[in-house]
């Protein structure tokens, strides 16, 4: 439960479980997870590979459905929405940053960043200045016309960050965003994310298996074998 004076929760999970069927074997990826993630914070979900971090992010990102329990994101019970409504909800409220960047290869950096604004039907003029401003914010104004295959890994992830943030979502989910980057670039990316999070007051949920990144987090959620084993507030709101 949210304590009095604490920031409002942007994500609420109540007794959430997720079970996969892998052939004849039933895999329990998440087991009875109940948690609240406060808004305007840089939260980190940490755990070893296979601990259930990505499954948790998928449920929070409304791209997967729980086997049991309820998922509430931005005060919306996701189970109450049909497929198109969930897609529209994601388009408006959630930004994604993936480990493998996942840029649309046939679109330029500018077009990749502009795409989420097209999905919410933003007028062209506003779309243009917002896209350019976002590229400027991540330091890629010069590379706006370049195709993804002309960008370095770090630049691609910057484009992905700009794409996730350009629509000013309530929630940004980053699943191991530095795993495919060298340590220096990874550190720069985390610094960038922390900076834009602070500027935009967007809630970031960052999943990682790297304990060294804990120092960047405001909130830490530790997961092991599909269970939440620890929730710790590192930095006071």
């Amino acid at each position, binding site marked *: 439960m949210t304590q009095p004076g604490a920031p409002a929760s942007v994500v609420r999970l109540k007794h959430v479980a997720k079970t996969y069927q892998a052939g004849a074997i039933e895999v329990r990826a998440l087991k009875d997870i109940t948690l609240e993630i406060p808004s305007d914070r840089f939260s980190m979900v940490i755990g070893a590979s296979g601990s259930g971090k990505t499954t948790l992010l998928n449920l929070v990102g409304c791209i997967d459905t729980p086997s049991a329990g309820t998922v509430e994101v931005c005060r919306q019970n996701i189970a109450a929405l049909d497929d198109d409504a969930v897609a529209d909800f994601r388009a408006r409220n959630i930004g994604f940053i993936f480990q493998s960047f996942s*840029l649309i290869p046939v679109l330029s950096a500018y077009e990749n960043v502009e795409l989420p604004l097209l999905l919410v039907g933003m007028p062209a003029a506003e779309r243009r200045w917002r896209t350019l401003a976002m590229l400027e914010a991540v330091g890629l104004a010069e590379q706006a016309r370049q195709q993804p295959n002309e960008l370095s890994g770090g630049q691609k992830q910057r484009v992905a960050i700009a794409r996730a943030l350009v629509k000013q979502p309530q929630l940004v989910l980053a699943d191991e965003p530095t795993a495919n980057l060298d340590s220096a670039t990874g550190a720069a990316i985390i610094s960038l994310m922390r900076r834009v999070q602070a500027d935009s007051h967007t809630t970031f949920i960052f999943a990682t298996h790297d304990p060294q990144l804990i120092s960047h987090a405001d909130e830490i959620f530790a997961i092991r074998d599909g269970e939440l084993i620890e929730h710790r507030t590192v930095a006071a709101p």
Partner: protein
Amino acid sequence: MSILFKIAWRNIVRNRRRSLMTASAVGAGALAMLLFLGYTTYIFLGMETGNVQRLGHLRVFRAGYFLYGAGNPTAYGIDSYREVMTLIGADPVLRPMISVLTPTQSLMGIAANYSGDNSASRTFLGEGLIPSDRNRMRRWDQYGTGNVFPADLRMSDADPGRGLIGAGLARILNLCAPLHLADCPPPPASARSDEPRGPVNADIAELAGRDAAASRGAHGPEIDLLAATVGGAPNVVSLAVAGAQPQGVKELDDAYVLMHLALAQQLVYGREEHKVTAIVLQLRASGYMSAARARLAALFREHHLDLEVRDFAELTPFYGQVIRLFSSIFLFIALVMGMIVLFAVVNTMTMNVMERTNEIGTSRAMGVRRGQIRAQFLLEGALIGAMGTAVGAVLAIVIAATVNRSGVTWIPPGNSTAIPLHLNVLGRPLLALGVCVGLVLVATLAALLPANRAARLSVVDALRHV
């Protein structure tokens, strides 16, 4: 829509070799179908033009003639046919539609040549008509086929004694030499008869001798035509053969006689009232046929005339058979090409979906709806189909133009002479458009299956796909 188009188009360009191969398959389909369509159009329009030039669009008969009249054409003569023609020609609805309105008399009998040592006879199928009207009818060319004929001056309205016969009949009646017919060898010696004329031939010769005085003076070799009059009496007239007119079908070529209407009427009606077996209407355009036919039926009902109307397709079952045959072949080719296009596009789009599974997952996570994913791949299939079809259509037009200018000739079935081959690709523009639209639709439809698969992908599974 523009972003969907952009992504679809750029993916086509990105996989240019694969897209090119698929578009080539669509293009080959369009090329084959349009060229064959051009050929069938040429055949259909050529046959229609030939039939309309020969038979007119519509023929008015006495009721029952179409089913029973061939056995005894004279028994189905139209009474007071000039009044009927006046009625038709003066009708304000029909008048603007009609190009030629002319009477014709079908008849049958025995044709014989007793000049010199000849003693040859043969049953004939004859047609009596007005030569100037025939010449006008042979100029009809609504579709611009180029198969128009100059006025045939071998027959004239002023000389009812002159006529034409089939090249086969000319050969049978030993008229090759007098008519200067090529490729017409004399009969083998063993087949020639030195015996005196039989009783029937002798009778004909005698009848002809009596009638000959009235028919002398016409140009060309003369033959005698014997027929029974409506009263049942034998009658003979002489026909000055002005030339041989080869017919495409041997049975007809061996029996065909074309004569002046007056001569035909003289032969079958004698001193009785002259009638005709049909009134021919050649219309300005084939599109008037149904309207003209309906108006004629109304006119005949109104005036209590026991007449029926038949169109050229009913009179020539061969025309319908050819149409159906070529239509079946076209349908078969369309099915084969459609299947080729279907499989080529399904294969390409399936590969595209597989390769872009992660991209689909990313788009879905960002908020792209399932329907938009489906639309993107459908658009891609449609674009490949449209590009292939466009190239195929342009190639078909270029190839057709080249063939049409090359002067290649051929002898179509039922024809006796070679005519230029003409691929009329745009002769039936709606059908050509239908072929193109159909191929694009097949390509789009072929993309539906992979597009649905892409749209139904689980976002999590798609994002996990490497």
